[in-house]
């Protein structure tokens, strides 16, 4: 006789464990368990069959793998949590006794990450466990960066201590410095939520969101304890990542931090990077803030500096970014990591796409320019993005904080002026801008320095995303900006792409429809004889009836199309009736041969569509129930997508028409 198997002793029932059971097994409180799960990256699982898993009558919602929980049992942090619990007990006991000084003493010696921003324990081993290799850590950096950049911009409250914010800010700035030095920022996007950045570090694409510099409204039920737990982990992670990144390009970590400059709002400028050895020091300094020391627009010094920069740039372009140790031995034989260009020797071969980074370096996009940020522009993102794409000299108004290349708007070395204010039309007299006295120099409202390019901030982003300098006329102050497009959307076949002309992407039916509408409109304007049209109408009506007879189960889209058709027809009829009532000659469309052809085309298309729908219906009938469901689901999403695209196209068509009418 085979062994009788008991229920709940093997299989799914053993593999899964509910949250309550897990908490009990670990002998932790729920918040501690939560912390542990967050840090160790343990997340619930969805069992295939909940009924088989849960032993209780009530439906449990959260299940973990038993193995995961067993793995947590060996966690050293567990002991820390227990110690903390003991301490809390001691404190409460002391307070119960009324022994306040004792309690205070206990508390002073407690590990209080919430209050101090720094825990007594370290998460180093957790980082190492969760990310066995550096690339694993980079892969998971999206959330980390978004979170830390958000916290760096939060106001300090009791839940979010100022120290934590300061540390987040510092880590973020350090990371930005790395991106600047290594030129690994790739793309950026101004969205309504904030600014998205994408960097490519060691082949990993990292995308994060930085909110705009406003006081963040904290709405509703946001539990900052949970967020704090995440931030704690992320801070440690980013610290180690920064260390690794800095040391990978031969910089010392942490970089020198100037408290005074930071208090004056220097942000990125408060750090000064140092090389690990002396040979690299000069170079890295030049990259970060070497230029900013000199304030005056001394042309001689400027020229010299320019020369040095040019030289440095040449050096950089010759040598690889990371291979800075052998900067002195710049032979032409030196092997580089950069991709070689493959030129076809003989004609006839296929052309393979190759990354173009070797030919024109986008990281030096702004290298030769001097920017001046006017005071209404967002300094921090502009400074970061300009520096990351090679700009070395950025000046700004003194109200924007310290660390500028120059605060003097009239500096002759400035080549680009980023401005974001409307063009003042009237008021040519100087009295008008009396309140505009915050700037060092008073400039007339429309006054421009000659020889300078004035652009709106979007110019910088569009240049960066397209990896080329866009024409500044489109972005002149006061001009209507071209749309700012997301660089992260990859064009998929059949999907709507706003950069392409409408004709290239609309379907045949849509095109015919649009043409017909145009024709009808055009005809409605110039009147013509009646009978012809009536005939056509009748014919169409007949056809429609037939259709109604023949088909009941039709696709939704098709019905839509028909409705549209019907609508236009009823409109026409309405027009006719009105005309009759007024006793006028019926103003109506002369159906010229072209329109007729179009109509026929449409008819043919409709017929084809109908046939296809019928075929589809037949084929669907032969599928098994399961497969039919799947098929319908897939079709649902596809239809939804195409419907959205269609909507967009329709909108655009309308807009274009309006524009054409205006013109």
């Amino acid at each position, binding site marked *: 006789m085979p062994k009788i198997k008991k229920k709940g002793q093997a299989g799914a029932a053993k593999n899964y464990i509910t949250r309550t059971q897990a908490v009990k097994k670990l002998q932790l409180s729920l918040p501690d368990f939560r912390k542990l799960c*967050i840090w160790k990256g343990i*997340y*619930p*699982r*969805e069992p295939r069959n909940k009924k088989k898993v849960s032993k209780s009558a009530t439906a449990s919602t959260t299940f973990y793998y038993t*193995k995961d929980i067993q793995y947590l049992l060996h966690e050293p942090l567990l002991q820390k949590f227990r110690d903390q619990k003991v301490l809390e007990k001691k404190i409460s006991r002391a307070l119960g006794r009324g022994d306040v000084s004792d309690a205070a003493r206990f508390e002073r010696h407690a590990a209080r990450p919430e209050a101090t921003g720094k825990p007594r324990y*370290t998460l*180093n081993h957790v*980082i*190492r466990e969760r990310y*066995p*290799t*550096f690339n694993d850590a980079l892969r998971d950096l*999206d*959330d980390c960066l*978004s979170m830390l950049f*958000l916290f760096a911009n939060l106001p300090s409250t009791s839940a979010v201590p100022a120290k934590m914010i300061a540390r987040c800010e510092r880590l973020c700035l350090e990371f930005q410095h790395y991106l600047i030095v290594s030129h690994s920022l790739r793309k950026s*996007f*101004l969205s*309504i*939520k*904030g600014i*998205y950045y994408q960097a490519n570090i060691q082949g990993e694409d990292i*995308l994060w969101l930085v*909110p*705009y510099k*406003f006081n*963040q*409204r904290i*709405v509703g039920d946001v539990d900052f304890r949970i967020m704090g737990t*995440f931030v704690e982990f992320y801070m440690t992670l980013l610290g*180690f990542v*920064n*260390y*690794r990144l800095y040391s990978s390009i031969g910089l010392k970590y942490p970089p020198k931090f100037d408290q005074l400059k930071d208090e004056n709002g220097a942000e990125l400028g408060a750090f000064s990077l140092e090389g690990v050895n002396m040979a690299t020091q000069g170079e890295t300094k030049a990259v970060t803030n070497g230029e900013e020391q000199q304030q005056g627009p001394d042309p001689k010094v400027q020229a010299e500096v320019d020369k040095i920069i040019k030289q440095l740039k040449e050096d950089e372009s010759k040598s690889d970014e990371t291979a800075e140790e052998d900067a002195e031995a710049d032979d032409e034989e030196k092997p580089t990591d950069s991709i070689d260009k493959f030129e076809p020797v003989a004609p006839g071969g296929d052309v393979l796409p190759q990354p173009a980074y070797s030919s024109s370096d986008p990281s030096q996009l702004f290298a030769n320019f001097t920017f001046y940020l006017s005071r*209404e*522009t*967002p300094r921090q993102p502009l400074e970061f993005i300009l520096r990351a794409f090679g700009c070395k000299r950025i000046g700004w108004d003194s109200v924007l904080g310290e660390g500028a290349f120059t605060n003097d708007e009239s500096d002759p070395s400035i080549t680009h002026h980023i401005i*974001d204010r*409307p063009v003042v039309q009237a008021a040519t007299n100087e009295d008008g801008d009396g309140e505009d006295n915050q700037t060092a120099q008073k400039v007339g409202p429309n006054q421009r320095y000659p020889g300078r390019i004035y652009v*709106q901030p*979007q110019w910088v982003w569009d240049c960066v995303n397209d990896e080329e300098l866009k024409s500044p006329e489109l972005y002149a102050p006061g001009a209507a*900006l071209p*749309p*700012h*497009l*997301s660089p*992260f*959307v990859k064009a998929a076949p059949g999907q709507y792409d*706003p950069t392409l002309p409408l004709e290239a992407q609309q379907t045949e039916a849509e095109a015919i429809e649009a043409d017909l509408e145009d024709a009808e409109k055009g005809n409605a304007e110039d009147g013509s004889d009646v009978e012809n049209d009536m005939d056509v109408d009748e014919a169409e009506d007949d056809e429609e009836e037939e259709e109604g007879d023949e088909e009941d189960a039709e696709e939704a889209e098709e019905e839509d199309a028909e409705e549209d058709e019907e609508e236009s027809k009823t409109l026409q009829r309405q027009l006719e009736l009105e005309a009759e009532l007024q006793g006028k000659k019926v103003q109506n469309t002369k159906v010229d041969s072209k329109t007729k052809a179009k109509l026929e085309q449409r008819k043919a298309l409709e017929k084809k569509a109908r046939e296809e729908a019928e075929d*589809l219906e*037949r*084929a669907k*009938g*032969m*599928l098994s129930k399961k497969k039919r469901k*799947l098929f319908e689901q897939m079709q649902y999403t*596809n239809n939804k997508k195409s419907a959205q695209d269609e909507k967009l*196209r329709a909108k*655009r068509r309308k807009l274009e028409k309006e524009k054409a009418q205006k013109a």
Partner: protein
Amino acid sequence: MGPKATEKKRKVQDAEPESDDEIAPDFDGALSQSEDEFDSDFDDNEHEQDGEQESGSEASDDEDEEGSLLSDDIPSDAEGDKAMGKLVLEDEEEELEIEIPGVDPKRPEKDDGDKNYRIEKDANGNERYVYDEIDPVYDSDDSDAQEAPNTIGNIPMSFYDSYPHIGYDINGKKIMRPATGDALDALLDSIEVPKGWTGLTDIHTGNPLNLNDDELELVRRVQMGMIPNELENPYPETVEYFTGIEEKMPLSAAPEPKRRFLPSKNEAKKIMKLVRAIREGRILPYKPPEEREKEEEEEEQYFDIWQDEVPQEVNPLHIPAPKLPPPGFDMSYNPPAEYLPTKEEREEWEKLDPEEREKEYLPQKYDSLRKVPGYGEIVKERFERCMDLYLAPRVRKNRLNIDPNSLLPKLPSPSELKPFPTVAQTVFRGHDGRVRSVAIDPTGVAVASGGDDGTVRVWELLTGRQVWSVKLSSEEAVNTVRWRPAKDSFILSAAVGEDVYLMVPTHASVTPALDQASRDILSAGFGYATNGQQHGAAPGKEPPAKWARPGAKLEDEGVLIRITVRSTVKVINWHRKGDHFATVSPSGQRSSVAIHTLSKHLTQIPFRKLSGLAQTASFHPLRPLFFVATQRTIRCYDLQKLELVKVVQPGAKWISSFDIHPGGDNLIVGSYDKRLLWHDLDLSIRPYKTMRFHSEAVRQVKYHRGGLPLFADASDDGTLQIFHGKVPNDQLENPTIVPVKVLKGHKVVNKLGVLDMDWHPREPWCVSAGADGTIRLWM
């Protein structure tokens, strides 16, 4: 007292040489005394030993420890000694100590400032610090321990009369005899009697014994025989503190343990441990708070944590958190205009609950960057992401990234499946009321139909012209009409109520020879019929059917035989050879199924008992099998062996009709619960395919008999559905079933649509009978 004291003294003296050695270093440390100062050492020692003796301790092996413990007391010891010396040496006014117990000798206050030593010269001329005697304040409750200043004991004082002293004090010093006053003094004394003067002399000290008032009172009370202390009442009233009942046994008779009186050694050890730990720095006192603050501000130490990184295999169970999708065009601060919502879309979005919104934001356009406000929901969105990261169960879902059309089966295109009927070619009108049944004759030229009006009509198939008609009944409807399948005759059978009529209609295609042949076939059985009936029917029992001539009027029309069975016949099905046919009357209980033999005019009831109501019955096209459908099942009987072969279970609630494929291995079943089921009889008793394409009950199903792979069903929703159903010759292959056409045209009347249909024997044509009173030919 005396002997005790001497004994003590002797002991002390014995111990003198070695105790000095032992103890000296200890005291050296504590008091920085030199060896010369023997006296004080000695004194101390003595006191100590006294103490030991008194507390009953035995040996002095742990003397050093105790010495260290007691060393604190030494200065006061010296004081006491000095006081004692004073007492001995000087003043008269001091009263004697012994006299009243409990009264402490007053200690004279020190007048030599705060110094407790004096400087002397020792033998070598060096300076020597001489400390005062130490008074071991001995606080004992023992009143007996009051020391007598004179230690000579209980001997007559007369022994000392010849000496200048009168005894020895506790330190072994002589107690000098007080000077006896001279005569003048005595006189003065006698005149000026001091207070409390008694005129007596203290025998021990030799001083005049003075008594104060209290003492005098005491003496007086003793003399009077009164209670010595007036405050003390020797017989007070009893106060019962607890209870009057006397306890038999005391609560605890155990004597107080000794440890109560001793300092705990264990505690001392613990304290020493702590002291040692503090000295060695193992226990640190708490740091001052400033230091701690500084420590907190210290930077976290970072290092290259991935120095020796080893790539690990990805755990297949681990599901990394999905990344957030990148922002699309519509999230731009300055999107293309077509992404902006219209007014209606905006209103719709605002009307929805925040949870139900497809996107959490509305695209918006700002004409310059400075106008972009902060995004209010960003903290919340981040928080939700955090919640998702740690609380959302992760499931790996395999997204089928394929074209959905690839899922569809490769159906042969309808053109390949042709021919099949597509359009209504002819509509046969003429029946009054519903047409219940329709059938095409085996040659394929005529259509017979029967309806609610009680007539049976025969039509020209292609033209729709009515060629023959007979009214069988004025009250009852013609339930079914069927042709005899053999081509050598032109015989139509029709069921009206309980009667089944066999007739030979006239038709253009019917030659007189054929007509005659048909009539012969019908009338051939009359001879048998009488015999058979007499044979088959037991006397008194009603025969299963009566075969008779219907009467002259009908016979003129061509109706030749009437068979009357017990209950209303709904179904007639002929055997392929045309000699037998089966009728089914569902209400007929036991006799619901009857098999009639035409050549013998014989009717048999094959089943004595049927489980369930018989719905329809049919002969197998090739083998001697007979199928009977009850409501739920189809039973297959072997007619030769007379046994049940198999029970087919379509799983339908109520079977309406079924048909057997001409090949004999497949079966289609229509049911009133809207299903059409294909059975492969070799495969299983369960359906191979279930088709649910009708919205109403399926009334009739039919295979094409002429070699085309077609079958069709008629339904109450007014449609016929034509299927391509190819049964392969290879047994291993499954039949392919493809729906090809829906034929719409019949109108639904009183929820009844198409009631019957039949295929043309050769062509891909079919006719259908509708509740709307029409018959349609589809081709």
